[in-house]
Every structure is written in C-alpha cells, then in structure tokens.
C-alpha cells in the first residue's frame, strides 16, 4: 500500500468519525431543542434547570439511561434482541457516508480535503438502499421482544416505512431527472453554479415545489415522526416496537430515529435547497465572498431549519390514524409523484429551463384542481 492510499484511508476514517461524533452530539442537543421549542409553542418553558438554559439536560439524560437496568423479557431471543437497535443505529449513521457539506475541496494546511466521506456516482441509490435496511432493525426489535403487541407495533411501523419509501423515492426522482445524475456533488454543483432564469440551475425547490412537498411529507412519515407516529405513540399499543427495551438499547433506537431525521433533512437540503450553497455571489473574490457563496455553515443552517420544521409539525398536529396514514402514502403521494415525474420527464426531454419547469408544475396542479372541481358530485 502506498503512502497516498494510506493517507486516503486515514482521511476517510477521520471524516467518518467526525460525522459520527457530530451526529450523536447533534442528536443529544436535538432532544434539548425539541423539548424547549415544543414547550415554547405550548406557552411553557422547557427544561432549564440542569445547566445554563438546561443545556446539560441531554448529558443528565444520557447518564440516567446508562445507569438504567437493562431488562430483557425471559423468552426473548437474546442475539436478535441485542442486534436490533444496533442495526437501526448503524444503518442510520451509514447514510451519512455520501452527504457533502461543501461544494469544492478545501485547502487545510496544504492538503486538499474533500468535504465528504465519499462521492460515488450512485450516491442517492446508496442512501435509499441503506435507509431501507433500517426496517430490519424495527422488525427484529418487535419480534425479538417476544411481545405480541410490540410485534404488532413493529409490523405497523415497518409497513408505514416501506410504503413511504416508495413515495420518497418517486418524489426524489423528479429533481434528479433534472440534474441528470445520482451523485449529490453534481446536484449541488448544478444548483449553486447554475442560474434559475437563464439555465437549468438554481435551487430545485423553485423548479419542483410539488416534489419538495411530496418528499417532505414522505420524509416525516419515513422517520415515524408526528403526525405520522402512531406506531410509537405511548397511548397506542404500549410504545410499539421498543416497548420492551430499556436503558442504552432504547437510547440506541432513539438515536437511530433522530439520526434518520438528520439524514432526511440533509437530503432535503442537498437536493432541494442547494445544500451548502449560500448567496449568489462569486466565490473567488476573497474569504468573505467564499464564505457567503457556499460553505458548511449554510448546510448546517438549512438542516437545522428542517429540524425546526420537524419540531414545529410535532407541536402542531394531532396524529393520523393508521388507515389514514396508509391512504395518504399510497393514494395521494404516490399518484401525485408519478404525475409530477411525467411532467418533469417531458420537460427534460424538451430541455426546458428551470422557470419553465416551475410553470409546468404549477399548471399541472391547476389542472388537477380544476378536474377535481369538475368531478365533484352535486350535493342535493
């Protein structure tokens, strides 16, 4: 092995470690943010006693979870019982291997560092595939608990996840069709370097608002998050697939859920909001312009905005009943995604500019609304 290859491997490992640590710390403070923000939306104050502004609360919770007795039902299959949360967490963290946090390689102490762990040409495919593996963690968790209600919760949860994966994938295909590549780096480059009015660049949310809405709804359902969190609500069937888990194993399921939230938010910012892109300024005119044009801080800002939207949705809406949930996934999101895909495909074939895509999608929505108004049955 040459020194260069060794250096490459070390760089990849170090970057992966940095991502893991950042995600787990982010998860911890996401719980803090959620409790404080949901409290504020309910006219109360969240935890503010443990540290300044309650910032040490996640540390206190972590210590508590570590000290909790790890119960295991007598008839539970130990190997699967212990494996399930590990699968969930590892799969959730693996998805971050392909997400870039800046557009171009940066120069640190003379070395050119690429701001991503890897940049395969099939990044989106990898990400969707790896996220699908998370379903194994859920099913194994429910089965290995030897609790029929946990199993029911696990089955409900996994059915929900795989249904919405379809809607998610279909919603993602439309903007990717516009970019013409499955690599996140190409997606970012087109959004930041291209122009909305004169080319096929600009943030893809402007060109594909319907796809964004579909993607976001499917993402919230994919993560089992309110208002789609029936399988894990405490008032339903115990607490779903993680009923029998306590202590650190439960913490791992919890971590997996929040890291999944970070993943879908990151994909949303990368594909729709231009990832690390900032203001449309030229980035070669010095450090300030370089930072204004694109950078990891923009990426973080957008991901945190999406996390805020997760919290906002949770504080606002009551949860869907399970049949309503499945109906939305199959009978609303999927058909709409396919129609949107059709319109996008026509546009790509005709080589439309970005604003033409927006107009086409808008007229598609207007047509659908008009059709539904015409089809409405007369009320007597």
């Amino acid at each position: 092995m040459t020194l260069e290859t060794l250096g490459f491997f070390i760089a990849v490992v170090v970057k992966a470690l940095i991502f893991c640590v950042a995600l787990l710390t982010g998860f911890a403070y996401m719980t803090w943010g959620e409790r404080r923000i949901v409290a504020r939306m309910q006219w109360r104050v969240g935890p503010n006693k443990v540290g300044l502004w309650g910032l040490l609360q996640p540390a206190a919770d972590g210590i508590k979870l570590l000290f909790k007795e790890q119960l295991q039902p007598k008839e539970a299959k130990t190997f699967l019982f212990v494996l399930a949360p590990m699968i969930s967490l590892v799969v959730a963290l693996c998805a971050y291997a392909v997400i870039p946090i800046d557009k171009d390689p940066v120069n640190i102490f003379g070395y050119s560092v690429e701001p991503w762990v890897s940049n395969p040409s099939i990044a989106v495919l990898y990400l969707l595939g790896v996220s699908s593996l998370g379903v194994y963690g859920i099913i194994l968790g429910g089965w290995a608990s030897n609790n029929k209600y946990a199993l029911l919760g696990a089955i409900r949860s996994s059915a929900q996840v795989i249904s919405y994966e379809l809607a998610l994938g279909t919603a993602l295909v439309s903007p990717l069709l516009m970019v013409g590549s499955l690599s996140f780096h190409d997606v970012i480059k087109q959004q930041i370097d291209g122009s909305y009015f004169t080319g096929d660049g600009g943030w893809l949310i402007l060109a594909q608002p319907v796809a964004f809405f579909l993607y976001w709804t499917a993402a919230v359902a994919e993560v089992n998050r309110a208002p789609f969190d029936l399988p894990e609500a405490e008032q339903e069937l115990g607490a779903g697939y993680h009923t029998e888990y306590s202590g650190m194993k439960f913490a791992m399921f919890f971590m997996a859920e929040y890291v999944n939230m970070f993943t879908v938010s990151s994909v949303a910012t990368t594909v729709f909001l231009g990832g690390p892109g900032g203001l449309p300024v030229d980035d070669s005119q010095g450090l300030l312009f370089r930072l204004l044009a694109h950078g990891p801080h923009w990426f973080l800002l957008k991901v945190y905005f999406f996390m805020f939207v997760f919290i906002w949705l949770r504080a606002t809406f009551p949860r869907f009943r399970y049949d309503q949930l499945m109906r939305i996934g199959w009978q609303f999101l999927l058909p709409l995604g396919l129609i949107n895909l059709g319109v996008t495909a026509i546009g790509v074939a005709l080589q439309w500019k970005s604003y033409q895509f927006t107009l086409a999608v808008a007229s598609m929505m207007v047509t659908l609304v008009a059709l539904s108004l015409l089809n409405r049955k007369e009320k007597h």
Partner: protein
Amino acid sequence: MDEVIKDLIALGKGLSITFRNMLQKPVTITYPENKRKFPARTRGRHVLHRYEDGRERCVGCLLCQGTCPAGAIYIEPEENTPDNPVSAGERHAKVFDVDLLRCIYCGHCELACPTNAITLENNTAIAGYTRESLLIHKEELLEPKGTATLGSTVAWDPKPPTPNTGDFDGSETSSAAVGQGDRPSRKRGAGH
C-alpha cells in the same frame, strides 16, 4: 384535489398559530425564583397562635384531635400552674404533635378549635428526607413569643374575633369570651 388544497391551507393556519405561540411569553411561574401568590384561605402547614399578652391560645381541649379525620394530631394536656399560666384557660397542651404525612390538610381542626388556636397557613413547601422530620412538635408549630397573629381565621370568618387578650373568667360561655368573634352567647339551659 381542491379539498386537499383547502386542507393544506388549514394546516398552514395551524402552523402559524403554534409559531406565534412560540414568540409569546410563557405562562409558567419559574419556581423557585418566583412563587405563586396563595389565596388567603390556603390550607398549608399548621400554626399555633397566641394572645397579645403572650399566653398561648391552645387550652388542650382535644377537640382538634377528636375531629381530625386522619388522626394526625396527638395532644397531651397539662394543668396550668398559677405561677406559670402557659395558656389562658385551665390547662394547656404539654405535647402537641402533628404528623404532616398523615394530615390531609382539610382544615377541620381549624374549624373545631374554640379559641382559634390552630390555623392552617400558607406554607405548602413541606418536604423532608425522613418520616421523623415530618412529625412536628409544639415548638415548631407555635408562633414565636411576641407575635400574636390570628392567621387565616380572618379569611374564614368575615368578622375578626374580639378581644385578643385572653382575659375571661368563665362567667360567660360565649364565643366572644374566648376571643372567637361576636357570635351571640348561648344561653345555658336544658339540652346545652
């Protein structure tokens, strides 16, 4: 589809409400830096009161012990000696224990007391590390020497009791005589 659009607009309205809520001041009272103002009739921890001349109001009649539904009060009465009149009657309470863990804070002892000796005041922060520490004795219950308040009696009884001196010679068995207000005297007759 149009229904969907209308529903989505309704969802947006809901989101705006929560967002606005987030920007408003929370209604939480941040205990212990700020505390609630309790109403006047709050039933908290008990206090034994005194007359203005320093004698205790409690005459060891055991009425509060008898009426307590939880059996939280334990009293041992003792005769008053002429050279040390602890209370204003013939006897006083030598031991007056209130078990704060048994007490249900109903206020019946306050209502039963003929001399307005025991009242429930607004100390609701009652906590301890051991059961023994929450069985309080007379020293902790009694008002300090020099204070002669009426406590929450004035909140329950609109006419404050007069007098507050504790001088009565037993010729009248009236509420006013023992300092419990201007209620009309009961005539002593058959059946009383």
